[in-house]
Structure formats: C-alpha cells, structure tokens
C-alpha cells in the first residue's frame, strides 16, 4: 500500500433485537464516540463513508437523513450500499489516494424497523426467482449448506458445533445480542428447523445497532495510541447463486488471496493469530476456514473438530460470537473489523486472546456470500 493506514478508534452500540433508539440516535452515539476517541471534533477535516441500504432503512437515499448524526454535515460524504466492511474499504481508498487523511466509517441498520423477510427477497432476480417465492436468504443458505455438506461429508453436528461455539463466545461479549453460555451441538440441532439442514440456532438473527470506526494516515495515525494497521485488503464478486457452485466460497477465497499477497502472508494458518468471520449461517464459517486458507478444501469440518478455532485454540475464530452473536445487516462485517482490531489492541475485555499480532476480518453481501471483502490487520 502507498500509505500506512491505521484504525485509530471505534465504537459500537449494544446489539439488540429492538433498540429503544432510532437509527439516527444510534449512529450519532457511535460516530461521536469514535470521533472523540480519535481526538477529532465535528469541525475537523475528515471524510465520511456510511454503509446502509434503502430497503432496510425503508427510505430512498437512506444516507440523506444520516448527514447530521453521522458527523457528515458539510463533509465529503458517500455511501456503500453493502456491508460496512465495504465502507471501510472505500474509506481506505480515499485515504490511499492522498486526497484525504482521515475517514469516519459507519455501518447501521435496524431489524426492528424492516420486515426481516423482505429486503432479502428483493435482491433476487425479479423476473424469475422472485416470482416463485422459493428463495429467501435462509432457503438459499440451506441450499448452499446442503451442497457443501454433501460434497465434503460435513456433518450436521459439525455445523451445529460452530453455532454452539459462537453462541458460547458471545456470552462473553457484553455487546452481543444472541448468546448462550455452554451451548452445544445437540442443543443447536434440537432448535426449530428453519430450512433443512439449517436450524434456527444456526442462523445469525438480524438485530438493531450501529458501529463506527476512524481510520487515518499521516500524523494522526503516527501519534495514535496503539494504532492497528491495515496490512492487506481484497474483495471479490461471485456469480448469482444459481450460476455458480455453492459448495465453495469463491468470493472469499479470491478476496483473501489478494489481501494476503498485500500483507505478505503465505501460510495463513500459521501467520494469522485470530479471525473474525462474517457468517450469516453456521456452515459459512466452515466454508470460510477453507476459503481463507486455514485448512484445505473440504477440510473445514475436521479443522473445526480439532478445536483450533475455539477461543483457547491456536487460531480462534469469532471470539466475539461473530455474526451469530449480533447481525446488523450493513454493520456486521465492519463489526468484525472492529472486533479484530480490539483483539490486536488488547481492548477485548473478558474475551481477550493473548498475543494477537495479526488478525483477519471478513464482510459479505448478497445471498450465499456472493460478495466478500477481507481485511488483514496488524499491530505495531
């Protein structure tokens, strides 16, 4: 990268099923907290990139009403209509160009405001799939889970185990919304069937919340306390779900290859200390292990069984609870970046993993992880 860019501050709301606050107030709180922690005021020079979606917010031009809460009044502001990790990516470009030095990144949505089933359906092909009402985010994920499990002999227990791990991890995260200490695979498999083979506890339930992060280059980054450096970044788009194999997460693999090359990572399983993965459904985390190169193709289940990705393992994944713990569409991936940065900084109170120097965070958009973005972060 042409410039060293660091994450210098962040803030998250608690994640809740039905927050007693508007999205504007939630955004105001995290934006203000992140700016303050970075030593910035509204009148200082910075650019703003938000991530939100007109269908989730129920308003055309959903960023239009976020100008003041997002600290974007009289600022150079834009919006990525994808996961918040893409807003971070765009903010990074703005800084790397040299035209900007500081960017405030925000992701938000409120599941209590939109009909949970609707925006997902609106993203399918309107001339065919939407007419038949067969596909929604969960049924599409179930098709993917089945394709993956069949191809590589992954068991329902392994998928359920991932959900149980993340629910248990979330119990240590005070901001998480969906948590269950001591959860196990049997409990997950015994929950209500969503779409076979996925049960309700394997799904990351949508909730309310917002998060914000300040990234910077130059003077502000250099004098920041415990900056977390962005070492590599990659993103990729895959074909529509009916036009590709569902048993591999190619968008994530391609994104990771690019990010690793930039960060000088050739052996991720030994060079990465911790990962925060955006998994909308439990099986996606197993697929992510493979796409991120933590294990070989089809080995996700066995890799999980080895215990490496538990919070006391060699490469803990989703110590925060991941998306299972809190899934705010348009913020989930940004929250993964923030959680990974917290681990590097030593800020992850109650769930801190010792000695995290290099961490990976991912975000995704579209059904069955159609689009993925990967950040590689490093400490001093």
């Amino acid at each position, binding site marked *: 990268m042409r410039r060293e860019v660091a994450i210098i501050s962040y803030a998250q709301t608690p994640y809740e099923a039905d927050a007693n*606050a508007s999205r504007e107030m939630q955004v*105001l709180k995290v934006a203000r907290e992140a700016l303050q922690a970075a030593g910035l005021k*509204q009148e200082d020079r910075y650019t703003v990139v938000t991530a939100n979606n007109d269908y989730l917010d*129920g308003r055309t031009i959903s960023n239009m009403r976020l100008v*003041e809460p997002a600290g974007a009044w009289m600022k150079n502001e834009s919006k990525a209509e994808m996961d918040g990790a893409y807003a971070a990516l765009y903010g990074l470009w703005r800084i790397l160009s040299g035209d900007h030095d500081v960017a405030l990144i925000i992701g938000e949505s409120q599941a209590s405001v939109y009909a949970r089933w*609707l925006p997902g359906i609106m993203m399918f092909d309107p001339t065919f799939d939407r007419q038949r009402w067969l596909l929604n985010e969960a049924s599409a994920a179930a098709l993917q889970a089945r394709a993956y499990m069949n191809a590589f002999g992954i068991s329902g227990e392994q998928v359920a185990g991932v959900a149980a791990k993340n629910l248990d991890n979330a119990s240590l995260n005070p901001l998480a919304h969906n948590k269950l200490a001591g959860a196990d695979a049997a409990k997950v498999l015994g929950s209500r069937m969503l779409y076979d083979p996925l049960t309700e506890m394997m799904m990351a339930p949508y909730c309310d919340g917002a998060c914000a992060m300040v990234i910077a280059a130059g003077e502000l980054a250099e004098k920041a306390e415990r900056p977390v450096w962005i070492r590599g970044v990659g993103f990729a788009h895959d074909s529509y779900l009916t036009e590709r194999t569902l048993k591999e997460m190619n968008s994530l693999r391609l994104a990771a290859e690019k990010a690793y090359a930039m960060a000088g990572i050739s052996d991720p399983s030994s060079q990465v200390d911790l990962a925060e993965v955006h998994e909308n459904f439990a099986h996606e985390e197993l697929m992510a292990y493979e796409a991120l190169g933590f294990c070989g193709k089809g080995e996700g289940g066995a890799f999980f069984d080895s215990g490496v990705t538990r919070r006391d393992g060699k490469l803990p994944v989703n110590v925060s609870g991941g998306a299972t713990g809190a899934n705010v569409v348009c913020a989930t991936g940004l929250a993964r970046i923030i959680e990974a940065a917290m681990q590097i900084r030593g800020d992850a109170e109650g769930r801190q993993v010792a000695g995290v120097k290099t961490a990976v965070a991912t975000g995704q958009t579209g059904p069955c992880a159609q689009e993925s973005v990967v950040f590689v972060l490093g400490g001093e």
Partner: protein
Amino acid sequence: MAEMEYKKETRSVEGSWPMEHWSWKFESIALISKTREAFKEKKLLGLKCPGCGLVYFPPKPYCRCMSEPDEWVEVKQQGTITTYTFTGAWAYEGIKEEEGPAGEPLIIVGVNFDGSDTLTVCTLGEAKPEEVFVGMRVQLKWPENIEGRLDDIAHVVPLRE
C-alpha cells in the same frame, strides 16, 4: 465485441414494493408531542442546542454539530418567509400534462419563526400568489380549535405591523 441478439418482444413481470412493512422509530416524535401540547396554550416551544446554540422548531433530537439539543425555549409567532411556491396542475396527482392549474392555487411557504434557526413549511393565507416574496414577514394564524396537531401551526398570514 459480438453484437448481442435481442428478442423484439418481451413480457412484463408484475411485482410490488410493499411499503407497509416498515415501522420507523423516532425520538423526535416524543419531543414534538411536547411542542404540540404547548400549542394549546398558544406557545411555540423549540429546543436549543447546548453545543452551538441553534434553536430547532419543531424540536429535533440531534444537531448538525453532533450535540443533543436539550433546552426548551419559546419561539416567536412571527417569522420570515425563506422560500415559497404555489400549486398548479402538479398538486396531489403527480404530473399530468393535459390538465391546467387545479382550482385556487395554494401558497406554500417556508417560514423561519423568530427565535429559531430552522424552517417550517406552512400555507400562506390572506395574500395572492403575486404578493408573496422571500423575506416577507408573516404571523402565525391559529385555527379556531387548537387540538395539539402539527397542522395547528400550518397556517400563516402577512404580518401587519
């Protein structure tokens, strides 16, 4: 690049964007309801920002300076027109090329009430369209029955000093 061949006929596929499925949250409604209650005493209550001193009327929970307005202040019932229009064929029905202006034009004005720093949209009465101008001084005209609705402050008339 090879020319794609398109079919001459297509089929339309119907669908809808079911708008009823959102349920938005606003702190502002709770704030505005206090202001609406005060209408019954013929008072206009605005909210002042502790950060930059701007007064929002009707009140707003956050300010562009990122502070949260928290001090109730009374706003005057006289104000200045900051922008205006009046209705033609467009009103109510969207664009209809064939129709001429529909009935008596409604004069719609943006009013900045004295003591506030914001605009409120009102209708202007007791004036003809050609008489309205930016900078015109106006006075709030209360309805006969004040019910504590936002509509109670929807009407202004020229200020006669």
